[in-house]
């Protein structure tokens, strides 16, 4: 019985650790290194990246969620630190323009094909 209990505790701890590592990895890959050329905090070896990695570690230990950590850092450094900028009034175009162009392109293509088919008939 004791052995089963011990195994269950070990499974619980290892699952928690794996989840924590995954969350940290995900956060670091979504943060931009402000002093590097297009590198993430996860990839960079700069002093700034090392500090941010350490701060993210602390924040996870403090129990902050992924969103709360992004909020904390974007309050300090602006949305530029995030690779996935949040949906805000000034970023609507950035988010919806690709979809709009896709739909527009599709409509044009549809009309052109339709016209060619009618002409052939």
């Amino acid at each position: 019985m004791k052995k089963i209990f011990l195994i269950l505790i070990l499974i619980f701890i290892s699952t928690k650790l794996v989840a924590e590592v995954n969350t940290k990895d995900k956060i670091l890959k979504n943060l931009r290194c402000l002093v590097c050329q297009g590198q993430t905090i996860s990839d960079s070896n700069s002093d700034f990246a090392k500090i941010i990695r350490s701060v993210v570690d602390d924040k996870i230990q403090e129990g902050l969620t992924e969103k709360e950590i992004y909020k904390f850092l974007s309050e300090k450094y602006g949305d530029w630190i995030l690779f996935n900028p949040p949906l805000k009034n000034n970023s609507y175009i950035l988010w919806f323009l690709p979809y709009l162009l896709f739909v527009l392109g599709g409509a044009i293509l549809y009309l052109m094909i339709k016209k060619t088919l009618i002409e052939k008939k």
Partner: protein
Amino acid sequence: MKKIHLIIICIFLIFIFTTFYLSLDNKKIYNTEDMVGQKIDKVELTLFNNNKTFNTKEISNYKFTLFNFWASWCAPCRKEHKNLIKLSKNKNLKIIGVNFKDNKTQAKEFLQEMGDPFFILIKDPKGKQSVNFGVYGIPETILVNQDLEILKKYIGPLDIKDVNEIKKIVKQ
């Protein structure tokens, strides 16, 4: 139909031209202009000379506070130090120095050699405290008012133009 094609191509070309024009005009260098007007967090900082703490909410006791992030190993900090000495003579302004990732002995030697403009000196040996102020390199200087609101943020060494600007603001 040809007319419609021509209009679509024209709109597309205008769109590409405008996008490229705006992108080229856009400054690629990160700046912290967005931070101006925001309030700094109330955080506990550790004093340089002992392990006592200083809470940033205490700066509401002073009319204007200038946070300067520096280190003895930083050459531009050496360059701007004379300007901090000039500003330290201003009665309306208190300068809080944050010693960033530095060797304590070398930091002390730096201040002995160049003069000490700091009203309060904070230590940040791991650089983590500076994240609370949005610092990403040194030297950086932040001018804050009594409400803990950021009035100005200077990235890089303070020059005489910045000194005059700060003097003008704190005179008000």
